[in-house]
């Protein structure tokens, strides 16, 4: 493939594509980052920016834990506008069943060397006085954090650029394969590897890839400094976020550095339009108010939607495609793409360069899905 102008062409300049570009460039590869829009303006700009360790599966825990550590290592280099804050996550238990889950979760994390702290009702109330009274307690994961995803994506892309990466922004990609990216104007980019990092749009470029759009809503308030201090997530989130069939909402709020409060979350399959769905928005805000009644008196500034790239087993797809050895995949991150972007980039480029990855890659390999069409 000596004719190729690039070692790697990455399609999709969200945080995952930008992180991959940075990692490729860091290892001396010739990289081009391609996007139909700009850097970090799709799902990256729609998401909360919660850097969180999650334990839905061993593989999810391993990837989120690895990625969180990579963010922590990068922390001192992040510019101010990335707004990285290690505010911690509190998983809030509203009843005895959820408090039992706090205990299970604490043991699970401890067995994997992630420090957490069980909070009783009184301590929880001291830490977050605007939660309604009557909560049973919670689990504080103090090394979790938040950041502002569009600026984090821009930071990664700029890093890549400083190391020689090129950008091709504003032209949509028609197809990828056989070592090339074909753009809508008919021009072609040749590369040894083409990475599909197009998020929920990835199946348009890799037909048969089992990724569905999962729509979400977020609301941001005016500035109310100190109203909430940690990222707060209801433990019932585990029940609602993982129901794969129906629409769901969960209490999930985040303090921003400006004093604003980011309020989520909703999950919907089969909703392909960007418009705000006022029915589910009302459910989401009612849920939030049930946990923090003071939210009802706040004024909101903006509401928006975005599309998560959801896989059937809730794990991203990272590695070589099964049908074309030039095409690699880095997508399917659902609601964890901001957290897992850095880990994804490392695992992807480790595989490309034959390095030993730090965590087992098998759970994320595209071959596990095995449903891509074989192109002639």
């Amino acid at each position: 493939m000596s004719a190729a102008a690039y070692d790697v062409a990455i399609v999709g300049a969200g945080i995952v594509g930008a992180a991959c570009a940075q990692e490729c460039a860091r290892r001396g590869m010739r990289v081009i980052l391609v996007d139909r829009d700009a850097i970090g303006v799709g799902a990256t700009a729609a998401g909360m920016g919660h850097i969180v360790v999650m334990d839905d599966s061993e593989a999810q825990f391993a990837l989120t834990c690895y990625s969180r550590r990579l963010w922590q290592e990068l922390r001192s280099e992040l510019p101010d506008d990335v707004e990285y804050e290690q505010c911690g996550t509190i998983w809030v238990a509203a009843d005895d069943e959820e408090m039992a889950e706090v205990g299970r979760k604490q043991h699970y994390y401890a067995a994997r060397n992630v420090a957490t702290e069980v909070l009783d009702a009184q301590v929880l109330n001291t830490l977050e006085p605007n939660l309604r009274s009557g909560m049973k307690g919670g689990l504080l994961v103090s090394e979790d954090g938040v950041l502002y995803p569009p600026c984090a994506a821009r930071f990664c892309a700029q890093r890549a650029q400083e190391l020689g990466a090129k950008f091709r922004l504003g032209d949509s990609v028609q197809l990828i394969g056989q070592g090339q990216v074909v753009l809508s104007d008919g021009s072609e980019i040749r590369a040894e590897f083409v990475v599909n990092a197009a998020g929920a749009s990835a199946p348009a470029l890799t037909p048969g890839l089992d990724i569905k759009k999962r729509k979400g809503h977020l609301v941001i308030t005016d500035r109310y400094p100190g109203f909430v201090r940690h990222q707060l997530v209801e433990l019932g989130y585990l029940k609602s976020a993982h129901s794969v069939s129906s629409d769901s909402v969960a209490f999930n709020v985040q303090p921003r550095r400006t004093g604003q409060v980011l309020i989520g979350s909703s999950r919907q399959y089969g909703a392909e339009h960007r418009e705000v769905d006022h029915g589910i928005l009302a459910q989401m805000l009612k849920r939030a108010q049930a946990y923090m009644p003071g939210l009802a008196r706040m004024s909101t500034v903006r509401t928006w939607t975005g599309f998560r790239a959801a896989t059937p087993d809730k794990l991203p797809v990272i590695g070589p495609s099964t049908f074309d050895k030039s095409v690699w995949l880095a997508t399917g991150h659902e609601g964890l793409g901001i957290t897992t972007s850095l880990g994804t980039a490392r695992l992807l480029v480790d595989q490309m360069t034959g390095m030993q990855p730090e965590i087992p890659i098998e759970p994320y390999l595209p071959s596990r899905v095995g449903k891509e069409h074989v192109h002639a």
Partner: protein
Amino acid sequence: MPSMTLTVNGVAVEVETGTTVAVAAILAGQPCRLSVGGAPRGPLCGMGICFECRMTINGKAHCRSCQILCEPGMDVRTDD
């Protein structure tokens, strides 16, 4: 004209009935709110559109002071 007294950041100010809170803030020499960077802000459009005049009135943050009339004893504070 009937008048009343209210406080803006603790500064007592006497206004006539029908005066907006934004005007009271100006008379008291107090900013309506502070920007994220800490710069003082005051009423710009005067018709409830620009949100530059937000103030905390009787404990409620982000009230558009140009749209709210003064009441006796009102506690008005600069938004942060």
